[in-house]
Every structure is written in structure tokens, then in C-alpha cells.
């Protein structure tokens, strides 16, 4: 993605962001609240119209396409707050994710608790189960790139560790590249190959976790020691 700009009305949420995710990579997008991380993800999938710039995916310019078309090209977004269809059952949520029966079976093996809850409304699941469902729903379409927006938000510490384990395994087992937006900076840097740090809509720093830690980025931009 090159020079991406997106706005909410008069407010510039994303200002000229350049960002790459290579095949098989986990890339973290870090920053304080309001830095433009979620807006960047929304601009990638077309939910927030890009005013300028280019989003290229698998060699194709997808900027300006409607969200449903971008998603069908192989990008999936698991939104912040999970945003499951609460009154629909687990099975219906999965079905809406697309995909075939074999994919569904494979994901139910990966997330066995979902198989036990197939006929329950998604809103009745615990926070951890809902996060598993949200990720499984995104994986139903067998995306090449998975955008995860704050996947650990609101989860208990024990569950947070399991979500990061899952992210690390997904790359290997589902062969999916991941762009991860996360407030939990230490954990995100532990799991990613590279990271970008955003502030007020722009990328302020980028590099490998070691480079960013060495440069004191956690303290300088993210307010963590």
C-alpha cells in the first residue's frame, strides 16, 4: 500500500501511509488510541474510502473496489470487538464466512469448542469463544491475508496468551499472512516479523521487533516501558 489517505469527514484518519505485508509474514501495526490503525485496516478492505493512494494485493490494484469484492480477492478482516452476528447461531456465522464443507470441518477441528456450540446464538458464547468464532469466520473464505483488529481486546490475561499462540500457529497451518493491530505492544512484537508504529495517521517508525526495541520505540511512541 502506497501513500494511502483516508478521512472521516473533515478529519484525516490516515495520512500517506506506506505499508507492505509479504507472503507468510506477520506484520504488526502499533500505536496509541486514535493513531489511525483501525482506519488503515478499514481503508485496505474498502470500508473507509481511500481519497488518495494505492492498495495493491497479489499484483492487482484493489483501491476503490467495494468491500465485498476486496474480500473475495483474498483479504479477510476480523474487526475490533469481534462484531459477530449475535442472534445468529455459530453455524450461521460460519456459513456467512463462505468457504466449503472441508474448510468448515478443518476449522471446527482447530476450534473444537465451536463444534459443541454450533446451534447456539453467537451472542451467548464467552469472550474467548467469540474471538475464536470471529477468527474462524474470517478463515472460512481461506484468505491469503488476514487483518486482525485488536483480537485480544477485552479478554482475560490467560486468553490473551492463547490468542497470540493461535496467531503464530495460523501462519504456519493456514498459510495466511497476517496484519495485526494490537495495543499489547510487547506481545505483538514477540509474535511479529516486522512492525509499523503509527501516530496521528502516519507511520512514525518501522522495522523488525529487535530494531524497534533497540530504538526505544516502545517508550518513545507507545508509552510503554
Amino acid at each position, binding site marked *: 500500500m502506497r501513500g494511502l489517505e483516508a478521512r472521516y469527514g473533515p478529519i484525516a484518519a490516515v495520512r500517506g501511509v506506506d505499508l507492505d505485508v509479504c507472503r507468510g509474514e506477520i506484520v504488526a501495526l502499533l500505536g496509541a488510541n486514535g493513531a489511525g490503525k483501525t482506519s488503515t485496516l478499514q481503508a485496505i*478492505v474498502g*470500508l473507509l474510502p481511500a481519497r488518495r493512494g494505492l492498495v495493491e494485493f497479489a499484483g492487482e490494484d484493489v483501491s476503490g473496489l*467495494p*468491500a*465485498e469484492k476486496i*474480500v*473475495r480477492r483474498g483479504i*479477510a*478482516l476480523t*474487526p475490533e470487538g469481534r*462484531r459477530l*452476528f*449475535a*442472534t*445468529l447461531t455459530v453455524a*450461521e456465522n460460519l*456459513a*456467512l*464466512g*463462505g468457504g466449503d464443507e472441508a474448510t468448515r470441518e478443518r476449522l471446527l477441528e482447530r476450534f473444537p469448542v465451536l463444534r459443541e456450540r454450533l446451534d447456539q446464538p453467537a451472542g451467548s458464547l464467552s469472550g474467548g469463544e467469540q474471538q475464536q468464532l470471529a477468527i474462524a*469466520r474470517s478463515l472460512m*473464505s481461506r484468505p491469503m491475508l488476514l487483518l486482525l483488529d485488536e483480537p485480544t481486546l477485552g479478554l482475560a490475561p490467560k486468553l490473551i496468551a492463547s490468542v497470540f499462540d493461535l496467531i503464530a500457529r495460523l501462519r504456519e497451518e493456514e498459510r495466511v499472512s497476517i496484519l495485526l493491530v494490537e495495543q499489547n505492544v510487547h506481545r505483538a512484537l514477540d509474535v511479529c516479523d516486522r512492525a509499523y508504529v503509527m501516530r496521528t495517521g502516519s507511520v512514525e517508525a518501522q522495522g523488525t521487533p529487535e530494531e524497534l526495541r533497540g530504538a526505544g520505540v516502545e517508550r518513545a511512541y507507545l508509552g510503554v516501558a
Partner: protein
Amino acid sequence: MHELVQNVINGLSLGSTYALLALGLALVFSIMGLINFAHGELFTIGGYTMWWLFDRGVPWPLVVVLTPLVCGVAAMLMERAAFRPLRGATLVTLLITSFAVSYFLQTVFQIGISAAPEGIELPGWVNDTVHVGSYTIASVKLVTTAVTLVALVALTLFLRRTRLGVSMRAAAEDFEVLRLMGVNANRVVLFAFAVSGVLAGLAALLFFATTAAVDPTTGTPLVINAFIAVILGGLGSLPGAVVAGFVLGFAEVLFESRLPGSATAFSNAFVLLVIIGLLLVRPQGLLGRPAGLT
């Protein structure tokens, strides 16, 4: 007792019309957040379709099939021509558009057909009666209730068993996330309009089989009552719209039959008083929930 049974039958019959219209309104509202006041004109189109077809001697089974279909297609055209170009516009803009479409169609009916009511030449069996014990019941009223129940069951199955139906329920909860599932949002909205049009067509069949006359504004008071039913049932709740449609039908029939002679002119005011009372007790409506199509 005899009068009470008669009132129940009349209430079921009138309530069926309101319930079907309210269902269509509620379905579109759930997905788009729009109360489509031009829904009444879809109902009127149903009436004119019946008038035109019967006038040309088309057999009634074909009229029964064609009327909801014509209304469904008209609803899709309405979505495509008036509402799709405004996708993403504010609710106020959409609401004003729905009024504009409503008045536009009424004017088209006035200029293109007539401002005066057109009589619908219904088949003779519509006036048949059925004897159950000591009761004599108009067969059309029984058919009305039965058709409504079948339509409700069919709609429930459609919403629960088909991918498109599940997509509609999902759209009612979170339209943006549905797009993230790769579902074509325009298609879901278009089908919601189509289903609401078919329901308006069914309501028209049942209503005009009793009144046998249609004019350009026939749908207006009915869609307002259906809107009241949607509010009373709880915005976003389909069962709520149905239950409230029947409550409204029963209340109207009851007040019209029970109020003393000079007060019957105010029966609608009494119905509205009851609704205000119910909404004071349950502001979220009879079966209202915070969000979602249930």
C-alpha cells in the same frame, strides 16, 4: 357471544393485512434503517394489478400468483431507481425520498388511471359464506387468515433455512460486517425490497378481496397503520410487527363495534390511545429488542 366471535374473525382478517404490510416495512427497516412510506403504493399497485387482470378476464388463480409478483418487481424497481443511488445518504434523506416516491406514484395513478376509485370485479366465490355451528363466516376472511399464517411460516423458513435469508438477518444486525463476509450488499437489499413487495401484494389480495375498490391513495392510511404496528411491535422485530398488526386489527374492530353510535367516528383515536398507553408501559415495543432481526 355471537358478536364477539364475529369481531374476532373480523379482527383476524384486518389484522392480517396490517401484519403483512408491517412485516414488509419491518424487513426493510431492519436492513436499511428506512421506514419506506412508499410501501403503501406497492399495496396500491397490487390493487390496480387485480383490477386490471380481473377486468381482462384473467382467471383468479393467475391473479393470485401475478399480484404479489408484480408488487415484488415494483419494489425491486423502487429500490433500484430511488434508493440505491442514495446508498450511504442520511436517514432523513431516505425518509424524504420515500415520501417523494409515494407522492410521485400517487400522481402517476391519478393521471395514468383515474383519481376516482376503480371497482374490482371479483370472482363470485369471494362472497361465499361458511357455516360453522350457528356462525356464518365469510370464506374470504378465513382464507385471509390462513394465507397470512402460511406467508409467515414461509418467511420464517426463508429467513432461517436459505443463505439469502440468513444474510438478511445478518444484514439487520451489522450491514458493514456482512460486506466483510464477501456478501453482495446490494443483492441483499434488493431481495429485502422484493420480499416486502411480495408481502404488500399478498396484503393487497386479501384486502381488496373484501373492499373490491382501489384508488390512488388507498395504501396511505394502511401503511400508516402498518408503521404504527412496526413501532408497537418493536423496531427490528418481525414477530413483533406481526403481533402488533393483529393487536391493531383487533383494537380497530373492537372499538368500531363497541363504541356507542356517535363515538364510532373516533374509534381510531381510541385505538391510538391504547397504543400510546402500551408504548408508555413498553417503550421498546411489544417484542422489541435493542438490535437484530429476530
